[in-house]
């Protein structure tokens, strides 16, 4: 039987991978992939805690909310990226410096 710790360690690794992806990529969509990693790690943690009786079923419900929020976030972010692409003709976030003072 697998305890709580392996799940938490896996989630920690996934969070770090997500942050590394966000740091290393300049493509806006690749950064969005990193964000998905972080959100998945958070949901995995919630579900693992829920399984071990910490907070009863609230963990699974909260993980559902994480999935819903991730979907909404991805939709709005992609719409913004499309707009960005129509304006600057690239999704390289370093090119989006028009607001620079």
């Amino acid at each position, binding site marked *: 039987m697998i305890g709580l710790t392996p799940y938490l360690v896996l989630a920690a690794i996934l969070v*770090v991978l997500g942050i590394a992806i966000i740091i290393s990529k300049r493509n806006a969509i690749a950064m969005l992939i990193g964000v998905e990693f972080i959100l998945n790690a958070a949901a995995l943690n919630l579900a693992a805690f829920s399984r071990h009786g910490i907070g009863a079923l609230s963990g699974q419900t909260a993980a559902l909310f994480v999935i819903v*929020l991730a979907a909404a976030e991805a939709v709005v972010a992609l719409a913004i990226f499309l707009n960005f692409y*129509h304006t600057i003709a690239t999704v390289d976030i370093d090119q989006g410096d028009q607001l620079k003072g």
Partner: protein
Amino acid sequence: MLETVIFFLFAAVAVVAGLAILLSTNIVRMAYWLIAMLISVAGLYFLMGAYFLGVIQILVYVGGVAVLLVFGVMLTSRQLAPRLRPGPGEALWLVVVATVLLIGLILSVTHARFDQGAIVASNSVAEIGHSLLGDFLGPFELASVLLLVALLGAAYLARPKAPVQGAQQRKGTAI
């Protein structure tokens, strides 16, 4: 025993997918590795008995978000992708930050003493439904409003401003 093997199988797929995305320079391959990671996380949900969560993960993430990302890639990467590989200085900082964060997180997670109860197998959809319409009624309604706002906002943001003109402009700058 079998559970341990399955856990490490799914965990390995998720971590390998993350590393592959980190090292890859092809945005479409990244999207497919993301799908691999999402499916393995769904498998972990099934493994821990959260069946409803696993199904929702596959339906919403793999069926929705991942496909949306692939569409985003197709709609935006006309010329070859912007820089997907960090410079040497950035890579150094990246490794330092990631290592410190990883060590800190894993140490804190392994040394924390959680008040673990027995493993509860409360996975019925009915219970989750009661929880959503009971304790979580407020967040549930807020989430529905949020989804509506996201739908309208995305449709508003992504609409073509001047369709014909924009298309000609992009044709000019494409090559």
